């Protein structure tokens, strides 16, 4: 396995130029896939035999819920990389991605609540998945809060790394505990998304919109990371050159 790309990603300069090349690409591919997936899902996929048309919310609910979890996974991994290998880009990643993950969790929560009304007859039900997303959202808010409260940059970097790693280890425990708690309190209600064997016409647009969401977030995250790199490396010569050559 060739690890050179991994080490290169750790260098702010290399990352910045790499992101210049690929961020737009990821973003536009993402938006394209997302649009195809959503339009397909909204207009062409068949209605669900149980939930009718309200199930079309799935094409925004599931991608954002998946992204919210993936972003937190990324945060945790970056936290480990930051603490163990002290790679410069890891704290930048955490700082840039945490707010995006929070927005993803927020959209998943809102869409879940709105979906809940026609499905369960209530805006909020203490369903295991929704509760997990709520807790995930709170975890994100914790990371963002500590990032914003600590003025010392080195301390803030360490702090969010520690919290991310602790969260990464705790996330499965929290998820398991919430599921166990849920079965204890609410046996045999049907959940929003746990459905056996979705037909292809429903599943394919979901896949597309999920992939699209990944692309969108990747592109947007790269811009945020680039902005943060510029702040941190403003003394470096390559930044000076990059900025002065830039047409803005």
């Amino acid at each position: 396995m060739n690890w050179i790309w991994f080490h290169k990603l750790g260098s702010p300069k290399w990352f910045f130029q790499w992101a210049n090349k690929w961020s737009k690409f990821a973003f536009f591919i993402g938006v394209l896939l997302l649009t195809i997936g959503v339009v397909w899902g909204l207009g062409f996929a068949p209605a669900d035999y149980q939930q009718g048309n309200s199930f079309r919310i799935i094409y925004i609910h599931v991608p954002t819920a998946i992204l919210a979890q993936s972003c937190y996974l990324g945060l945790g991994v970056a936290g480990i990389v930051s603490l163990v290998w002290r790679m410069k880009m890891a704290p930048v990643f955490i700082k840039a991605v945490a707010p995006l993950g929070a927005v993803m969790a927020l959209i998943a929560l809102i869409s879940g609540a709105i979906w809940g009304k026609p499905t369960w007859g209530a805006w909020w039900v203490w369903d295991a998945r929704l509760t997990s997303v709520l807790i995930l959202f709170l975890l994100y808010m914790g990371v963002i809060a500590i990032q914003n409260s600590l003025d010392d940059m080195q301390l803030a970097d360490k702090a969010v790394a520690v919290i991310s790693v602790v969260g990464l280890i705790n996330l499965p425990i929290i998820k398991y505990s919430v599921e166990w708690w849920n079965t204890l309190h609410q046996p045999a209600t049907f959940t929003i998304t746990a459905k056996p064997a979705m037909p292809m016409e429903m599943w394919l647009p979901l896949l597309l919109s999920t992939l699209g969401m990944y692309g969108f977030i990747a592109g947007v995250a790269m811009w945020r990371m680039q902005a943060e790199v510029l702040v941190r490396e403003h003394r470096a010569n390559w930044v000076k050159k990059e900025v002065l050559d830039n047409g803005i």
Partner: protein
Amino acid sequence: MTYSSFFYSEILAVFRRKQDVVNALVFFLLVITLFPLGVSPSKEFLQPAAGGIIWCAVALAVLMSVEGMFKEDFNDGSLEQLVVSGLYLPILVLLKLLVQWVSVIIPLLVLTPILSQMLFINWEILWVLVLTLLIGSPALFLIGTIGAALTVSLRRGAVLMLLIILPFYLPVIIFSTGAIAAAQVGQPYNGQLAILAAISLITLTLSPIMAAVSIKASVN
């Protein structure tokens, strides 16, 4: 400085600051009292809710007492001295926590018979409550230390610490109250206790190291 002199000084410090221990207990009792007054004093409500009420109060009381555990050391510079002492910082954190845990949990255990009367807990269930306290509370302390170490340099870190630490307390609270609820309906509760023990063990290995990292980052 040696491990034993540090440990001894921590014990001595707890005895000098008895008021802190009393404060945590009074706070705990106050939270418990809020529920009968705020919701309902009836046995029908309190008996099934007792486990949840007690554990929420325990979580808050533990957070209160853990929040300040490095504050004074940070302000007077002795935290800095711990960092340069050449002793292994995670072990120092662990020793400090051990003293803190004993000073909060032992008085709490003494209080539990009184609680059982206030919240209509049977004597058999009381035993389960004591077990969950003994097995589950170390995890609360261990996770809380990380937050305390991270926010020690902030003047008003208490709210922030609550914000980042409370979500991590959920599994402990869920399984503790689960064990008590299971015992109340006569079901086996060993599984929940085993999971609690597992959580405490995981945090025991992880959080002293994380707390040490945080302390080193905070002291500057």
